[in-house]
């Protein structure tokens, strides 16, 4: 009988527990806390945080419970991540909820979305310099795109082993947009620049909004075919939204479908952060490079906006450049917040949405380009 | 003039009542002056009053993001537009200065629970009003007053 108890005890989490599991469980709890109490990206941080708890329950290997065991339920759910299935579904939902009218009203702001993607490639170089393999560097660099699904998609294709740390880094920095971006924005702009008022965008017709996703899809995917899974679904979702007659499909895409994909994506990515797999030297490097990438992307957007002002008659508020990272709509909200700290009557949110949604397109193209250059 | 009597006569819900019935209903109402931005009810609070609009505009913000705007004299913010099981499910905000008449919820229910032609008239008129103003809010199962056919 004693032997049975001993055998049972040896299979419990208390016996099998490793300090790394404890660390990851604590990080998971912090994620859940930040999501619920601080309202930082709760729809992402809560599933990922709980996924971390799931993934770090110490288990007896061979029982088919762990996410990395080929016959486990979690492993089957994780298949959607490793094969890049969930990110396009999330993009479909994003497309079905995004209004591109601000972009259509002032297309020049699209360049800010492109400029912010420079962070991806600069970080790519940084990662190479630190000794990462080229495929891993591409996956690390994409964190600067501030687009979780894109980061996961590219990592699944190029460096599947790094999905856990890259996804966690990407979503952590996205959640911390209100903390990370303002100091960079303030550092790179003068008060006079932050006070610039932008002219009201023109009205955009329904027909323009309908044509845009089709034109954008054809142009971008002819240019970078590897962006097809992400951009295709993004633009298709937007077509569903704008077509009106497909409203039912659009509603499903932007509610049930994206929620389902987000839950599965979040929980499985969280569960993939098993302490022994996740807490490595390369994860630390990824987190540092991810933060650098994010900061560079923000800075590139702001600096490019300042550069554009040299040539533009109707000046743009350089704060808007920070929204070029595609954390929609958080970075646009940050622009609004920082702008209103200087002038409470200055209304930048709408202007910031243009580079913000163009950042989504830009990061998808960047992912496509990196994928095609790496394979 | 927007006296209570005039408003009741204009109201789709009460205009079909006999004058004797109107005399019975009128003492239940008391005047409430509305100022722009006034919050008359907050969702989640105990439901105590319904409101008959005399003048002005009321925004009825329901749980879940839906809303109804009442802007005609005689519009009635009541029953499933306002509450469920004694709790407000709707926050009411005045969008402009005006006047409303508040009627205690329980007293109103006591009146329409009676097996009288006036109660039947009010309930029938209420269904028509609700169809026209906020058909989406018509959830028979949630009406915490008897349905009189």
């Amino acid at each position: 009988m004693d032997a049975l108890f001993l055998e049972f005890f040896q299979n419990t989490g208390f016996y099998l527990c490793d300090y790394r599991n404890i660390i990851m469980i604590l990080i998971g709890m912090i994620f859940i806390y930040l999501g619920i109490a601080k309202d930082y990206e709760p729809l992402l941080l809560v599933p990922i945080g709980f996924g971390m708890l799931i993934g770090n329950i110490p288990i007896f290997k061979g029982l088919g419970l762990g996410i990395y065991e080929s016959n486990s339920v979690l492993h089957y759910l994780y298949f959607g991540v490793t094969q890049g299935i969930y990110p396009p579904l999330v993009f479909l939902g994003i497309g079905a909820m995004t209004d591109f009218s601000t972009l259509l009203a002032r297309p020049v702001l699209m360049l800010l979305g492109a400029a912010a993607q420079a962070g991806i490639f600069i970080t790519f170089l940084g990662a190479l310099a630190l000794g990462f393999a080229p495929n891993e560097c591409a996956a690390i660099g994409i964190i600067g795109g501030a687009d979780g699904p894109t980061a996961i998609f590219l990592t699944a294709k190029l460096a599947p082993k790094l999905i856990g740390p890259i996804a966690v880094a990407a979503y952590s920095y996205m959640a911390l947009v209100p903390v990370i971006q303002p100091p960079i924005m303030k550092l790179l702009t003068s008060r006079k620049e932050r006070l610039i008022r932008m002219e009201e965008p023109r009205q955009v017709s329904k027909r323009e909004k309908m044509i845009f996703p089709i034109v954008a899809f054809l142009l971008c995917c002819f240019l970078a075919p590897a962006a097809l899974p992400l951009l295709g679904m993004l633009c298709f979702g937007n077509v569903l939204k704008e077509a009106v007659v497909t409203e039912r499909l659009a509603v499903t895409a932007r509610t049930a479908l994206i929620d389902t994909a987000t839950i599965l994506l979040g929980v499985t990515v969280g569960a993939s952060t098993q302490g022994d797999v996740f807490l490595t030297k390369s994860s630390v490097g990824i987190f540092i490079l991810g933060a650098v990438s994010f900061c560079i992307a923000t800075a590139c957007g702001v600096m490019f906006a300042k550069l554009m002002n040299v040539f533009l008659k109707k000046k743009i508020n350089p704060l808007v450049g920070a929204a070029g990272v595609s954390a929609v709509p958080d970075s646009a909200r940050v622009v609004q917040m920082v702008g209103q700290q200087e002038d409470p009557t200055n209304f930048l949110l709408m202007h910031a949405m243009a580079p913000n949604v163009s950042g989504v397109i830009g990061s998808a193209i960047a992912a496509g380009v990196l994928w095609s250059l790496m394979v | 003039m927007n006296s209570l009597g005039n408003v009741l006569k204009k109201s789709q819900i009460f205009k079909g009542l006999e004058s004797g019935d109107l005399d019975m209903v009128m003492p239940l109402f008391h005047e409430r002056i509305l100022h722009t931005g006034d919050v008359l009810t907050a969702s989640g609070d105990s439901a105590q009053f319904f409101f008959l609009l005399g003048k002005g505009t009321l925004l009825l913000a329901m749980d879940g993001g839906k809303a109804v705007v009442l802007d005609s004299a005689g519009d009635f913010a009541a029953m499933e537009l306002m509450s469920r099981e004694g709790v407000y499910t709707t926050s009411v905000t005045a969008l402009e200065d005006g006047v409303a008449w508040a009627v205690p919820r329980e007293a109103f229910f006591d009146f329409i629970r009676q097996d009288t032609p006036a109660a039947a008239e009010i309930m029938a008129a209420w269904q028509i009003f609700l169809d026209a103003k906020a058909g989406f809010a018509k959830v028979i199962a949630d009406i915490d007053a008897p349905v009189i056919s």
Partner: protein
Amino acid sequence: MYGLEAINANNGWAISAVGITIVFSGLVSLSLLISQLHKAVDLFENPHKIKAWFAGKPDAKVSESPVMVLREDQKEVVRQYALLARTMDDHFSLPRLLHLARVSGLKDPCAHLNLLLKSGIVTPDGEGYFCWDENQFNQTISY
């Protein structure tokens, strides 16, 4: 291998340059294309403009719906409301719009929301949500 040596060995400079160039050229060409899109759509929607070009006559457009006359300060707030409405779905929650107006510090949000309703710029969709009427908005603002 680390540092510049690693970057050179893995063709890092070229990959980065090509990558950023493709991203930029993609978005620049898309930007150029959509900057002309509204003109093409406008001609498609108003074929009489093409005729007017050849006839050399100015395009006359007469508003048919009644327009509420607003003061300049009211127009300014209505414009700010328009910006907020554009961040929302076509069928949006009116209480949400009011909430956004409050947190964004718009002047007299309730009174101006009432103006939007009275002027027909914001109209109910019959399902508990509301729509923004761009035509009515444009007419009201330009009146």
